[in-house]
């Protein structure tokens, strides 16, 4: 039996061993008394000292402190409930935010060996793309020895099932996808490399569980039946499980073997075109290989690939391997967003802690008496400090438990609202629990340490600490309110202001010519036919072509230094009539001539930055080695950078080789609701192989704004919670001050002071910390909101209305919080309060 075991035995049988010790010492005393000695000292103290040898003194003290803390907290249930509620909100917000981050970025996918999955992406110092050409993928797959498997996923536009009106989303994957993830089939079978790997195999499709429920009425007999995708017969081979965990959190309705791609999308050369970056690549590291080693080998392979097809590889290109076994493969930009959210939620915790700290300090005054007695009967400062810390820790633990419950509840609601994959569960895992424990400790230190120090040193009369805490609360809630205010302004702005082009009557038609292997010539022919026929339709005002339509699937931008400042330029390739179709005004110069080369139209904001104070027309715009003449200046429009007001746009004339990628824009004379079916039938009559994507910009724009509105609503809610917390805290403090100073106030009033003066002295005590808090908070918000700029839909991050509104709300809440309890001082019955002492 080791020493530790013996110690534990002593802990468990403390009563018995203590009795034995007592017996020993009593006997000793009897014997000593016989021998004539009479002084023994304090028997209890002696015994306690002997017991220290067991090594459990700290435990005894702790349980003493805990019992005492529980008694103290139970004696003022109102305060305790308030404190737990405040902490639960502060911690709950953080727990739900962290849980979400955990689910998205930390929790391993419930698939076979998620740790060895890597996401492989092309990067170079200048460029980055999440997709690569299929031939490159095949090259890496065939040659990489550090990868035991390679998976490709090809996303495609929605496909038409039989004669359904609503198209179904689809992904083409290499048939090893489900084998690598070890996904069992809910019904039928998943893909099998030996059966679904070749173009000649019988075409099969795997349905998602949701699709199977929705479209096929949860009928298991659908397995083996034939459906038509884009009018091609395909056999249903299986259904994914209900809680299927896919790579990258993807959830299409249909999973198709990649070998079927040329069959289903006729004329497509995606699988053979070495320049068309279209598939996302995942790999599984060979046993014992780490990602860095794989990157090394892939770098060499990239160089080999460059020798084979030089155009397919960028300068200095390398393949980046990042952990792929999570719902979301995190990019550096995402970490920035996560950090931003973390700052906001931690601010809430700061408000809660400052709030509670001030309450504890106030409460300390009423405990002066109790602490005084304890010090008088021999408690050391250290002991009292420890006792007070234990109390804070008990409060923090209670608050954390409530916060954990609250956080999980919020997450649960969020998951069902966001329609998240079914394998994600809101139940906290060990990471969330660890995080909560850490947060509990931090919170306890934050709100408990300063009051405990002050009380233990018996200096609680000082109000400065309380005032600092008030200022901190006001500052933190100020930041939250301002961020909320800016986001509300952004969503309003997005809703009610014009992105620079009239989107209400616009329709975009993407025939997907490139995907179907159209040559530039054939594409031009098709597009001119389509344009002519569309123009002839009644109610169509204008038709034109653009490469990157607004709210399209691809956004391209370049970061360029203009006169010493970094500017995001969104280039686009257009046909001469585009500006007119979009109702973008031409401010200077002219639009392109048909077939014009080496010409460029810039947006007004770009012209102003590039050539301030000069006439932009006739200037040269440098683009790599080419020099383009500026022929026109267009009004500012955010065709592609819909939410980024700093961005500027640039238009080049579309050339022959761009034709397969062009999208048709149609402007209707009135609401375009009737046009899509007409456009569909026209397109079908020209080429029935194509399934154009026809979208109303009005609807897309609304969806897009809805997202911002939702974020604004959540942040406003959080901001309001913080403000209310601060308000409640200040009400408590002022009420407390008034009750502390009742006698003084009564004497002043008795001596003839005006009630307004008395009110003034009380309010003054809180006015400067509130002012300092407001100023500090506004400054901090000004700095932090820089990171928000791109999400603000053209609202400045220093938008006076957003700041003004937020500060006004905050001031109203604070004034009410100060005046409401201070009123009591005015209604004071002077005679009564003077008599009572």
């Amino acid at each position, binding site marked *: 039996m080791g020493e530790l075991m013996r110690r534990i035995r002593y802990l468990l049988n403390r009563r018995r061993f203590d009795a034995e010790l007592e*017996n*020993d*010492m009593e006997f000793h005393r009897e014997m000593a008394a016989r021998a004539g000695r009479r002084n*023994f000292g304090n028997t209890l103290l002696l015994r306690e000292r002997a017991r220290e040898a067991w090594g459990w003194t700290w435990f005894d003290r702790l349980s003493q402190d805990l019992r005492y803390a529980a008694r103290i907290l139970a004696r003022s249930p109102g305060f305790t409930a308030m404190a737990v509620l405040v902490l639960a909100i502060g911690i709950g917000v953080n727990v739900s935010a962290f849980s979400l981050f955990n689910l998205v970025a930390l929790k391993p996918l419930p698939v076979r060996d998620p740790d060895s999955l890597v996401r492989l992406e092309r990067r170079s110092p200048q460029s980055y793309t999440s997709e690569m050409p299929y031939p490159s993928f095949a090259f890496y797959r065939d040659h990489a020895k550090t990868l035991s498997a390679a998976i490709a996923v090809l996303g495609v536009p929605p496909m038409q099932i039989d004669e359904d009106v609503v198209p179904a989303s689809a992904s083409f994957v290499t048939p090893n996808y489900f084998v690598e993830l070890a996904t069992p089939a809910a019904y039928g079978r998943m893909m099998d490399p030996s059966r679904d790997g070749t173009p000649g195999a019988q075409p099969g499709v795997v349905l998602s569980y949701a699709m199977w429920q929705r479209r096929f009425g949860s009928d298991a007999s659908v397995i083996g039946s034939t459906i038509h995708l884009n009018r091609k017969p395909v056999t249903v081979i299986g259904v994914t499980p209900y809680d299927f965990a896919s790579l990258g959190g993807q959830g299409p309705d249909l999973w198709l073997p990649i070998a079927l791609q040329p069959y289903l999308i006729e004329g497509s050369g995606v699988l053979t075109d070495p320049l068309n970056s279209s598939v996302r690549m995942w790999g599984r590291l060979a046993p014992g290989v780490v990602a860095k080693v794989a990157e090394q080998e892939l770098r060499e392979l990239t160089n080999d690939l460059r020798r084979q097809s030089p155009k397919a590889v960028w300068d200095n290109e390398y393949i980046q391997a990042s952990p792929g076994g999570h719902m979301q493969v995190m990019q550096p930009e995402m970490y920035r967003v996560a950090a931003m959210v973390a700052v906001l939620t931690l601010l809430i915790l700061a408000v809660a802690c400052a709030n509670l700290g001030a309450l504890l300090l106030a409460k300390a005054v009423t405990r002066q008496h109790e602490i005084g007695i304890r010090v008088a009967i021999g408690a050391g400062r250290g002991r009292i400090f420890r006792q007070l810390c234990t109390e804070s820790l008990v409060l923090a633990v209670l608050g954390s438990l409530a916060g954990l419950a609250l956080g999980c509840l919020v997450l649960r609601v969020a998951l069902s609202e966001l329609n998240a994959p079914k394998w994600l569960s809101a139940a906290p895992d060990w990471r969330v629990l660890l995080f909560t424990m850490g947060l509990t400790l931090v919170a306890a230190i934050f709100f408990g340490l300063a009051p405990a120090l002050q009380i233990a040193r018996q200096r609680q009369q000082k109000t400065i600490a309380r005032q600092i805490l008030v200022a901190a609360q006001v500052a933190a809630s100020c930041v939250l309110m301002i961020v909320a205010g800016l986001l509300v302004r952004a969503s309003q702005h997005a809703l009610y202001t014009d992105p620079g082009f009239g989107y209400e009557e616009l329709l975009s038609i993407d025939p997907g010519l490139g995907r179907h292997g159209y040559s530039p010539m054939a594409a031009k022919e098709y597009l001119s036919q389509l344009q002519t026929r569309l123009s002839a339709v009644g109610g169509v005002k204008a038709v034109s072509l653009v490469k990157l339509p607004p709210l399209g699937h691809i956004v391209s931008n370049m970061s360029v230094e203009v006169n010493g400042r970094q500017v995001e330029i969104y280039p686009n390739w257009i046909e001469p009539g585009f500006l007119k179709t979009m109702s973008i005004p031409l401010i200077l110069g002219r639009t392109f001539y048909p077939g014009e080369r080496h010409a460029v139209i810039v947006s007004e904001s770009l012209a102003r930055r590039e050539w301030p104070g000069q006439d932009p027309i006739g200037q040269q715009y440098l683009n790599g080695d080419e020099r383009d003449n500026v022929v026109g200046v267009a009004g500012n429009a955010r065709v592609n950078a819909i939410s980024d007001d700093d961005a500027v746009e640039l238009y080049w004339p579309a050339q022959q080789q761009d034709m397969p990628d062009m999208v048709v824009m149609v402007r209707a004379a009135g609401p375009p609701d009737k046009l899509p079916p007409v456009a569909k039938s026209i397109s079908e009559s020209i080429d029935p192989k194509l399934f154009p994507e026809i979208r109303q910009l009005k609807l897309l724009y609304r969806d897009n704004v809805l997202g911002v509105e939702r974020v604004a609503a959540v942040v406003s809610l959080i901001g309001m919670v913080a403000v209310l917390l601060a308000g409640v805290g200040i009400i408590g403090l002022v009420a407390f001050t008034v009750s502390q100073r009742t006698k003084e106030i009564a004497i002043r009033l008795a001596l003839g002071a005006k009630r307004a003066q008395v009110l003034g002295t009380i309010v003054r005590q809180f006015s400067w910390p509130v002012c300092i808090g407001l100023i500090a908070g506004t400054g901090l918000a000004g700095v932090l909101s820089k990171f928000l700029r791109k999400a603000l839909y053209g609202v400045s991050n220093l938008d006076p209305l957003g700041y003004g509104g937020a500060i006004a709300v905050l001031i109203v809440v604070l004034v009410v919080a100060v005046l409401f309890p201070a009123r009591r001082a005015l209604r004071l019955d002077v005679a009564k309060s003077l008599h009572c002492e």
Partner: protein
Amino acid sequence: MPMTNTPKSGMPPGALPMLILRVLHSSSLHGYAIAQRIHVLSSEVLAVEEGLLYPTLQKMLVKGWVTGEWGTSETGRKVRFYRLTPEGRKQLKAELSGYDRMTQAIQEVLRTA
């Protein structure tokens, strides 16, 4: 009122466990007898106080050098006797040799300096 707890016996620190181990080597004794035996054997030079004896004994119990067992005292009272365990014997041997080395070294210095 704070109490002084420094033993007045003048015993070098750390010597008590060794002495206890040594007196328990021949027979098991109760606490008072241990104190008495040390007092007598040291020709009444060393006095072992309760305030030091019992914490030391508790420490030795936890370390497993001694165990307690019930017996009857010479006055006919039920009392705990402390007995050396095999580990206690080993510890005694170790402490004795350590002590020997220490005194020899001190002697050396005293003789030659």
